[in-house]
């Protein structure tokens, strides 16, 4: 059976035009998707049933038993952490946050290791953004800063920017100028009209310099700023200002380099300055397909996009203090539930080690690095393949992922609802 307009649960582009062929409970072909998408749909390393650690071995256990034990561990903890969420649908995320408020837990999503700094910057200066169609239809200058879409978001350029024809740009590739800023010449840089090579850690200074130039303070700029010549800075500023509609996209190269959220803040303030002259928007290149959804769901329930601490009953938020990496590094947590993410692969070593020290439970379809740190793993259906639910694209557009076939696994929502019910009962509510 061929299913059209399938939503891809891989990256923040959330492409929704895939054609997927299904035979029984197996995907046999994927059209329109990038290679990352095909891997996600075709890959099949599912865990067969819940497992728990028995000494040095794993033993199979039932869903009932695994959920019951998980509830006990979480209820016993003084400082439990519920981490992950970006790889599942919004309905499951919502139960997760309610579970955290019930437990007095910390709850955090993968923003903590990707675009958390972008969120912190937005909280200082706001976010002039737009949906991706606005870029596709209007943008004549595109900037990729600290991001290599050809690798990480393979269809970003063809669906939304460089190669996508739009209403006001009938021949996109000719009509748009592309600027790439990075510390090394990436594949994306090869197709740029202007490539700006910055010394590592130099983003903040270059952004400050560009702001000053756009404001007309050219005289203050030294001959070279972080490895970028004054002439190139002037040329880039002129190119930026030549736009009728400019769109800046940035990635982890900017969020995770020295200065972190202040880099993003500076980039946003450059965007705001450019808006005094023409139209500009700026957007983070979000990684996980539904990480933005986790930020949205966290926010309407708790008021904060990530790193929320319910220990005191109320919601408290302070990245650096309530972010999972920091909390684990300080060994605060005494139990952890990981849902739809792989901190074992993405967290610093000290954090992973602490996860291995405390009772860690993972809810995930696949075995992965986190499995090795866990005591219990509960396999679930994969959202977008054998489960469905809401996802938010990197620009905030909500799209419902599709269930392509009915498999034998319960969804994250079903597992979390059962867990929530047990905890509620244990709390006498």
């Amino acid at each position, binding site marked *: 059976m061929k299913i059209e307009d399938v939503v891809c649960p891989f990256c923040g582009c959330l492409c929704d035009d895939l054609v997927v062929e299904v035979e029984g409970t197996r995907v046999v072909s994927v059209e329109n998707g990038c290679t990352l998408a095909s891997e996600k749909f075709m890959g099949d390393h599912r865990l067969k049933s819940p497992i728990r650690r028995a000494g040095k071995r794993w033993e199979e256990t039932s869903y009932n038993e695994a959920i019951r034990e998980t509830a006990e561990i979480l209820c016993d903890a003084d400082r439990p952490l519920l981490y992950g969420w970006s790889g599942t649908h919004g309905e499951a995320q919502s139960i997760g946050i309610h579970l955290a408020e019930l437990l007095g837990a910390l709850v955090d999503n993968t923003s903590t290791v990707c675009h958390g700094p972008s969120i912190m910057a937005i*909280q200082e200066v706001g976010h002039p953004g737009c949906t991706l169609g606005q870029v596709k239809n209007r943008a004549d200058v595109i900037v990729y800063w600290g991001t290599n879409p050809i690798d990480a978001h393979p269809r970003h350029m063809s669906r939304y920017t460089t190669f996508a024809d739009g209403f006001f740009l009938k021949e996109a590739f000719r009509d748009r100028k592309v600027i790439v800023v990075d510390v090394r010449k990436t594949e994306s840089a090869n197709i740029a009209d202007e490539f700006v090579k910055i010394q590592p850690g130099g983003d903040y200074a270059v952004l*400050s310099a560009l702001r*000053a130039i756009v404001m007309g*303070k050219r005289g203050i700029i030294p001959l070279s700023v972080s490895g970028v010549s004054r002439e190139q800075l002037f040329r880039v500023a002129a190119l930026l200002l030549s736009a009728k509609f400019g769109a800046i996209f940035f990635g982890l190269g900017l969020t995770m380099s020295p200065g972190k959220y202040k880099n993003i803040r500076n980039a946003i303030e450059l965007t705001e300055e450019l808006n005094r002259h023409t139209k500009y928007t700026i957007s983070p290149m979000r990684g996980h397909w539904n990480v933005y959804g986790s930020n949205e769901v966290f926010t309407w329930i708790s008021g904060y996009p990530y790193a929320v601490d319910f220990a005191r009953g109320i919601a408290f938020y302070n990245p650096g203090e309530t972010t999972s990496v920091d909390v684990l590094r300080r060994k605060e947590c005494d139990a952890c539930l990981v849902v739809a993410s792989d901190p074992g692969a993405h967290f610093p070593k000290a954090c992973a080690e602490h996860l291995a020290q405390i009772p860690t439970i993972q809810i995930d379809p696949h075995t992965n690095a986190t499995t090795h740190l866990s005591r219990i793993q509960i396999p679930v259906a994969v959202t977008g393949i054998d489960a469905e639910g809401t996802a938010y694209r990197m620009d905030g557009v909500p799209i419902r992922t599709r269930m392509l076939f009915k498999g034998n696994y319960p969804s994250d929502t079903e597992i979390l609802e059962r867990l929530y019910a047990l905890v509620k009962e244990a709390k006498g509510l």
Partner: protein
Amino acid sequence: MRVILQTKPRKNPHIPIEAEAVIPQNFLRKNDIRVYEGNKERKLEEIFYITTEGPAVSPDQVEIVLAGETGTLKRVGEYMNAGRIVVEGDIGMHCGNFMSAGEIIIRGNADAWLGREMRGGMIRCEGNAGHYCAAGYRGEKRGMRGGTVEVMGNSGDFTAEYLCGGEVRIHGDCGDLTGVEMRGGTLIIGGNCHRPCGNMTGGTCMIFGNADAMLPTFRSNGIEEREYEGQRFQMMVFRGDVANRGKGTLLIRKK
């Protein structure tokens, strides 16, 4: 009155204690002070051995002494408006948040957010301070607004971020983006710092060591003489941050 709080051994000493109730004004009526250990509410006496000496009729006559494993105590001195707190060792995050009067002395190191959004009073840390020393809260436009924070050792990144008023003195070195978003007040650094005063719009920052990686958007504005610890120094004066229409003043010791 002198209240001595000596920490008791705990099963899991890594879990922080939230102790915003530990402020002098609360000890006038001593009964039933609660703190939190993770998500569990605890009576003060579950966490501390408590010794009380002498009387007090007003909070400014109360001195609290914290001893033992105090490095995980958070929010000590929050909203403090009188009296004195002495920490014999290290102190956890958010010591002296929103403090408006009184004094806090820390003999060891202070963790991050020392004196966050402070309004008045005095904090002295004899060791090092963590990140965001004398800074603000996420999204809030104004950080510390008054009072004095003095750190005898070093401080971390984002020292005095969003400083609006009062004085911050760091005798050692500061980390990255010192005085970022400053809009008022005075920041004095005895040692070195990195990328000072990005995006500043007001206030004065004086650096008596080296300023590494100066941002390109400061305008040189002559030489002035300033005093630090009894000695007079020639200082290069800068105005900025020009990227932000800034009217702040940055002075760096001339070599």
